[in-house]
């Protein structure tokens, strides 16, 4: 069975032109064999579809206590899109995010990130994949209290045994407005600043997907707006896909796409970008 996905040409002469429709799980090489296109080379093709969720289901508990947290959820997101997930408490938002991020396993269905089947990997493979491709931002920041701002930001790189690039770190600190706080410990920062550090940590690996679980839940309105602006600009600037849970309808309204979760059923409400 062939699944289709759109690819956009990034060559200088025809930027943005959709060039081919191929089997999603194919390698580039195979794509070219099946669809020889002289005008497009491997280098000029980037994957447009970052997240694809197919028939995702998840239940908790047994017998009478059984709760269906996700019911047959399917959707996809393209590179650079900003998605918001809204819904009442206990509707299944966090479960959805956890399954998409590979933190939790679904009972049925599949999640593809950048074309890789997340649940087809073993635990170790998935961890490394997550480290390199998915950034997380939490409501309560979860910074390492013993590390300063800079150390917290570069920590995922260290877990990947990579040497932090000075320019990259400086760039992130500058974007986040934390240049003067780089040596501060989390305990010496405000909530908004701590969340900015968490965003920096999520972005340092240049992940294709950033998942944020109520990142503004612990912040006042001014800081919430700052964080939203940062996330939006990151999505635009670094062409990263962002999926964010929020209770704040105002914040959700600035997203490209809005997903409403009700009793485990996901439906798309549309968004600013649509």
């Amino acid at each position, binding site marked *: 069975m062939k699944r289709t996905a759109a690819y956009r040409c990034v060559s200088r002469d025809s930027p943005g032109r959709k060039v081919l429709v191929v089997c999603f799980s194919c390698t580039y090489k195979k794509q070219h064999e099946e669809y020889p296109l002289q005008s497009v080379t491997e280098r000029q093709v980037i994957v447009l579809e970052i997240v694809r969720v197919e028939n995702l289901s998840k239940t908790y508990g047994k017998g009478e206590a059984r709760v269906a947290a996700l019911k047959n959820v399917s959707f996809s997101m393209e590179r650079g899109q900003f998605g918001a997930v809204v819904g009442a408490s206990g509707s299944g938002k966090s479960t959805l995010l956890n399954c998409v991020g590979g933190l939790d396993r679904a009972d049925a269905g599949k999640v593809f990130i950048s074309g890789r089947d997340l649940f087809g990997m073993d635990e*170790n493979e998935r961890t490394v994949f997550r480290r390199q491709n998915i950034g*997380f931002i939490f409501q309560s920041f979860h910074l390492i209290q013993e590390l300063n701002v800079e150390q917290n930001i570069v920590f995922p790189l*260290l*877990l990947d045994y990579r040497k932090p690039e000075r320019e990259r770190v400086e760039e992130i600190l500058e974007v986040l407005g934390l240049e003067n706080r780089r040596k501060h410990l989390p305990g010496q920062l405000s909530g908004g600043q701590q969340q900015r550090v968490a965003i920096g940590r999520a972005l340092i690996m240049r992940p294709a997907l950033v998942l944020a679980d109520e990142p503004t839940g612990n912040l006042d309105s001014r800081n919430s707006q700052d964080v939203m602006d940062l996330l939006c600009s990151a999505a635009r600037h670094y062409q990263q896909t962002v999926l964010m849970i929020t209770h704040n309808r105002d914040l959700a309204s600035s997203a490209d796409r809005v997903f409403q979760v009700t009793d485990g059923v996901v439906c798309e409400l549309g968004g600013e970008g649509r």
Partner: protein
Amino acid sequence: MKHYLELTAIFAGQHKRQTRMTRLCIVLAVFLVTVIFGMADMEMRSQMIQAVKSDGSWHAGFVADARQGALIGARPEVEQIARYGAVNYRLQDGYRIEGVETCICGLDRNLLEMFPDVTILEGSFPGQPDEAMLNETAKSRLGLQVGDLVSLTVPQGISRQYKITGITKDTILEAEHDAFGMLLTVEGYDALHTKETGAEQEMVYYVTFRSFCNIQKAVGDITAQLGFAPEQVRQNVKVLALMFQSGDSYLIQFYFVAAILAVLVAVAGIFMIAASMNSSIARRTEFFGMLRCLGATQKQVVRFVKKEALLWCRSAVPAGVLAGVVVVWLLCGMLRFLSPGLFEGMPVFGVSIPSIAVGILLGIVTVLLAAGAPARKAAGVSPLTAVSGNAGTVQAAKRAADTRFFKVDTALGVHHASGSKKNYMLVTGSFAFSIILFLAFSTAVDFMHRAITPLRPQAPDLYAYDGGYANVIPTELAGTLRDRPGVRRVFGRGYVQVTAPLDGQETDFTILSYDAQQFKWAKRDLLEGDLAEAADGKGVLAAWREKGQIPAGSKIMLPLGGSVAEVTVAGTLGDVPFSYGRNPNIGSSETLLICSEELFQSLTGERGYAVLDLQVEPDITDAEVAQIRKEIEQACGAGISFSDKRLSNREVKGAGYSMAVFLYGFLIIIALLAFFNIINCIAMSVSARMREYGAMRAIGMSDSQLVRMIVGEALSYTVSGVFFGCIIGLPLNRMLFHQLVTSRWGEQWQMPLRELVVIVVVMGVAVWLAVQGPARRIRQMIVVDMVGTG
């Protein structure tokens, strides 16, 4: 920061307080291992000093001829070789000086280096065949000086003249048997040996091997190549055993026991460190979940926890080793203080390299082993834990607390202890483990008290006896000697052997008389019956026999003094710790009866003693001993034999001291283990529940109620630990007691109440102390901080 593992160092720097308990556990584990091995090393050193003093420092001896001796001496692994031969060793072959049986030894000069017990007091080693050295006893009894001539009569009746070139100190054997000893050169000995006896020349070649030589292999090679029969080869078993070069099965068993001990301590250490690390991991579940969220693999988390543990080792291991070394120094100092003469060879500030090496190695291995389970636990933390927001430090309860028997605060404490079955079993198990160890090892102390006779209060330093077991020593002599300077106690025993029917069988009885003091000492050996009755002369005490004891109340008809007297057995003694008077031919089958001096006189008509024991002050001079001896000889005639056991007593006493230090030291360590384990477990449990306590405070629980809750928890662990410890420990104690004591001395096992009280008191104090710290923390707790950080 260049590597994610550097976070461990940053953590360690910032959380010194939180990790203090875990580091203390590592310090303690390393300390225990260092002390155990340090003490074992010290015990080995002191045993080596004793062994060299009593048996010499030689490794192997070969009965060989000159050609074989030369071949042995030429071997590269042989460091030193010396010849030795002796005649009249048993003092009954007729080699006499002035009519006194003399042991004659021929030896090379360098043999003296292998036998440090043989000390030259004055003069020098003989250089010519007609020169000799004599021992102190011979010198003082014959009134000889260096340079004098002495005449030796050999069994064939010929007399030989020797010039005395030196005087040696009495050896233990010579002192005990009051014997003359004469040392000759090998040439002198050869001349005497071949000419006078006509016997084939037979010498023992004593050998010391070079360091790092496999002695068993070398001895085997020599034996095979020179065709020695097994009886021609002897080994210095004690010394070789202490060099770990013995093939002796008993000693291998001893090493095995030591190894088991070390493993037990290591296991206890692993328990302790693992428990404290587990609790440290439990407190940081969220952190590990977050690490996993950020992309740390399970392997990376395991590495993180192990690195953290190793980092603690960096300071904790040296601290433990240092503390261990200091304690070993203290113990060495104590031994030197207790027995300065014996342990002078032991360095006070000696460093035991093996104990330090084992301390470090076992410390690190223990920490790594202990870190294994907590590391896996940390790695098993789901990344979901961090994002779900319910990463509790305490496991969810599966059942409600039982408030039927206790108030809610205590009931909650009990529930905290028993809530998690696994944790409850682990903590209770570790408490019970300490009790089992304590009870098992306390039997070794019982064994020591019985096995080492001179440590018993009645052990004599000097004694005079009649070789024919006749009661020739007047009882009044005891009173006279008691007043002499340097004499502490004098007591004697009358002695009579008689055959009488018992249970229809003719039985050999040996009847001994005890004075009041000896009856007093016998009190602790009384297995059954009434001691006072025997002391008052109304009955006799029977000694316990392997073939069956004589029950109290039995009547024995003794044919004594021409008539038959009936005596009643008033009780049974587990042990009669006097060897004199025991018929070696009858051995353990003889039956000993003990009665008062009055009853002894009325039964036998004998008024004197056959043996007179003296206990003397440690500073008594040899001249004073000689004076005492003179007095005894004047009172009893020159036929009386005299034995000086001061040297051998000192030696065994020394062995006893070092054994006692080792055993009691070990018991103290076990008690300490239990002590710190309790403090650690309670502190950890409280730390893990601080947030919960904060919430309880917030809803109105008072400080004292919280403290009661902790006490409830601590006591739950302790009471069940004591219970399970006793259930396993007491039968083990009984079994070991039976094997070590009952089988040899007949004493029946009794509930080790004293040991139980000691360990329970130690645990009680530990519980009390364990509650103090958390109670203080609870009083200082800021409730808002505790409930607000959720």
